[in-house]
């Protein structure tokens, strides 16, 4: 049987796809607090626990700060730990996100992306995860439920890679993915177990000698105490190098996952870019709409293409350059605002990546979809049209455009 024939087609929304993947991984600890639109993930998972389908210790905590703290404690003791959150929940975890990555704990967290308050809004945008972009986590962004399922399996191996040892955030658009039923091909349980294997530990030289990096009374080490100016900076550089190592490790894990599942995603997914004159780059579910519009525009003779970015941290500069160099005009879709900045978070990264290149494309930043504002095919068409005007003019009139907002 081929890899695909062994798989079961299931109807799952994005949250259920995350819960089902994590059920198959069977982690030691899940600690979570409910928040819309993530709640289904932990609801489903707590059913798996109640029905005895996993061996996981499920910890019902009193806040998201506690949820991630609990995962940090569990992972430090050697457990595989998972949590999930959204919006204010991720904001409340903020200080712990930096601790999880600095302690090099390969926790996996699903984030059903939702707008940040105020005003309160339960719908999708990327401001929650973009607020955590500097926290030292690997960030995977999903376009559909299939990608959520696959990412929630691959994430363990990416984070636990011996050269990496970092937490991983799997992002799925709130409601658009979290609550929308889709077809998902799922692997047999035993293939997932075999793929994730046992958690691997780094070796460290603690003050009593070399030991596995975990809290073990027989081989004690101390994690994260006072470091002061003598050592702190060096520890930060190690995190920089770990994220660089992730750029090498992620394709390795992808290759192996491809052998098991027949699916691979890489850092990014170029779509009809070969001879494109116009391209849009973006993250998440919007890219499904963008690719649909690309097909329509191609029918009409417009040389449009798209680039879906799957990995935002570490930022895949080389792969990005390779994919878009030579395209005259590139639009960057940002579903978040970086207040006071020259543009949206993705725009700034793309622009920085291209600065050293001699022949740079025209870049225009399109902010869209804040607080769940619908990004329709018509809006994407209008964006391509605007981008084409910038191309014809030889430059953007305005660098940052707030698409779909009432003027």
């Amino acid at each position, binding site marked *: 049987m081929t890899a695909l024939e062994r798989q079961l087609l299931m109807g799952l929304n994005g949250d259920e796809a995350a819960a089902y993947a994590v059920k198959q991984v069977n982690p030691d600890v899940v600690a979570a607090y409910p928040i819309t639109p993530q709640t289904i993930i932990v609801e489903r998972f707590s059913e798996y626990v109640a029905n005895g389908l996993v061996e996981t210790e499920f910890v019902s905590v009193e806040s998201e700060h506690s949820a991630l703290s609990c995962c940090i404690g569990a992972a430090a003791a050697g457990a595989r730990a998972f949590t999930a959150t959204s919006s204010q929940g991720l904001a409340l975890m903020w200080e712990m996100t930096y601790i999880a990555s*600095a302690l*090099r704990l390969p926790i996996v967290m699903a984030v059903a992306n939702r707008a940040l308050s105020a005003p309160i809004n339960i719908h999708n945008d990327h401001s929650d995860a973009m607020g955590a972009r500097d926290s030292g986590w690997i960030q995977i962004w999903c376009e559909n439920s299939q990608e959520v399922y696959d990412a929630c399996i691959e994430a363990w191996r990416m984070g636990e890679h011996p050269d990496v*040892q970092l937490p991983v955030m799997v992002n799925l658009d709130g409601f658009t993915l979290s609550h929308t039923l889709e077809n998902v091909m799922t692997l047999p349980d035993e293939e997932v177990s075999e793929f994730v294997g046992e958690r691997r530990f*780094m070796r460290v030289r603690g003050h009593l000698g070399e030991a596995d990096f975990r809290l073990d009374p027989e081989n004690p080490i*101390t*994690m994260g105490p*006072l470091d002061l100016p003598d*050592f702190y900076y*060096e*520890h930060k550089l190690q995190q920089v190098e770990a994220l660089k190592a992730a750029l090498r490790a992620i394709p390795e894990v992808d290759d192996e996952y491809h052998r098991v599942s027949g699916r691979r995603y890489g850092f990014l997914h170029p779509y009809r870019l070969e001879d494109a004159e116009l391209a849009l780059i973006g993250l998440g579910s919007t890219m499904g709409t963008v690719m649909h519009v690309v097909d329509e525009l191609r029918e009409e003779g417009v040389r449009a293409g798209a680039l879906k970015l799957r990995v935002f941290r570490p930022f895949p500069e080389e792969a990005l350059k390779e994919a878009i160099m030579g395209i005259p005009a590139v639009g960057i879709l940002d579903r978040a605002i970086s207040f006071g900045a020259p543009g949206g978070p993705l725009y700034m990264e793309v622009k920085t990546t291209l600065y050293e290149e001699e022949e740079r494309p025209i870049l225009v930043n399109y902010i869209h979809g804040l607080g769940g504002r619908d990004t329709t095919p018509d809006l994407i068409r209008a964006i391509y049209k605007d981008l084409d005007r910038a191309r014809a003019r030889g430059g953007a009139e305005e660098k940052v455009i707030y698409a779909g907002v009432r003027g």
Partner: protein
Amino acid sequence: MSLEKPSWRELPRGAVPYMSSAEYETGDWGVSNPSIDLSRCTRCTLCHFYCPEGAIRMGEDGYPQVDLRYCKGCGVCAEECPVKCIRMVEKT
């Protein structure tokens, strides 16, 4: 504090300290140290228990001994001593 300072490559990963925290001799942070008049000390042990740094130990003779390598000079011992036999003396 004399330290051999390794490069980031040699430093243990995961925010693991390079050395035991006992080697961070924090006694040089303070501006004063306790001076104990042992002739008035009742050996009640309160200074030992109150010291936030664990820098006061009770010796075999039952009298407190201050480990100046770790005393930050906070003065909690002097404040709590029921017979007021501990005096904070500014370092010169």
